[in-house]
């Protein structure tokens, strides 16, 4: 599938970059969110309650 994409049009490649780019940004920022929560101790505080 990836090989066919490499031989595809620039627009098809653009769609791929858009989908995976946006998913990637959300995934990385969700990870950052979890890190902030973890470092802030929110998870632990909730567990204690």
């Amino acid at each position, binding site marked *: 599938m990836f090989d066919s994409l490499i031989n595809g049009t620039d627009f098809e490649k653009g769609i791929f970059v858009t989908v995976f780019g946006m998913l990637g940004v959300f995934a990385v*920022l969700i990870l950052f969110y979890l890190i902030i929560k973890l470092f802030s101790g929110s998870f632990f505080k909730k567990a204690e309650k």
Partner: protein
Amino acid sequence: MDELLAGITGIDIRMAVMYVIGLALIILAIKKEYEPMLLLPIGFGAILVNLPQSVVKYASIASEPDMFVTNIIQNNPEAAGLFKNYIEIDGLYYKYEPGILQILLESGILTELFPVLIFIGIGAMIDFSPLFKNPVMIFFGAAAQFGIFATMLVAIALGKFDLKTASAIGIIGAADGPTAIYVASKFAKEYFGPISVAAYSYMSLVPIIQPPVIRLLTTKKERMIRMEYREEKFSKFVLIAFPIAVTIIAGIVAPISVPLVGSLMFGNLIRECGVLERLSQAAQNELSNLVTLLLGITIGSTMTADSFLRPETLLILAMGLVAFIFDTAGGVLFAKFLNLFRKEGNKFNPMIGAAGISAFPMSARVIQKIAQKEDPTNFVLMQAVSANVSGQLGSIVAGGLVLALVPMLVH
């Protein structure tokens, strides 16, 4: 006698147009205060490089072409990269001695040195505290990057740009000058000037671009939504550990983004560690100022009449506007989407989504201004600032992902 008059006879109409463009940038910087630290040096650089027989870009160019190099490159165009200090004129390659601005371009921008140094300075200036106090706002920093990708698709659809160039144009939507410069230096060297000018110009036009888009996509009732402000407590440890953790994650997810993210986070670590106050101040002031000065005038030096005065430049400037419109729309619509799942009284004011761009703190101020116009007692500034800080993270992550994804698809 001809040599004495060479300066006067060497001026052509295209150079004169570039003087007007350079002057316009300088006027915008001084009169309107649109990103003066960048637009003024860019404007001056554009004038400098278009002076007849200007030696700031090329100190000297050989009078005869080097036929040995010309033949090799004509038989194998990919070999062009092997020969440094050769300029192509009408298909023939001439050896040149670089002038001061060309030296700065080759050693400061094409090597990525200036953007990386700028990122250290920016990192030392960023205070992530507003984000840690209200971490849920980080998602708006992701949604508002939509403009990057939407603009890239529009640029490709125009049929004038390939994937690499279109993605460099899309990065204008990061609303983050150094990221735009960094990506353009890798993917679209020939459009470096227009992309940089568009990135910085539209950043300063956020107060003009965002309000109409927000009004178009929201009702008055939505713009009047009040948001309860809750601050989460965090320790000094979070401030120190965060830049280290972000660097490691970015390095694993998109290794190519490490110079970008790593330098930003290094600057931030210097700021937050509490024991490097002098270095932090140096990064925020001396380093940032010096590199900004050189960066601006070097960008201006890429704006030769031949490379700037072409239809693609107008398209790139138009695409910059499209990028900021899509950014704003992406953030606002994402907030409206989240509101579908939130209870009454706990909804987001959708305008907050528009603050998820990297133009800090301008976008947050714009949102607060609109909110107060609708309801003078409504304060959403703190939430908007949190979203705005997350936009600074989002833009750099988006830039890193574009740098990682696009080369995978290009032969």
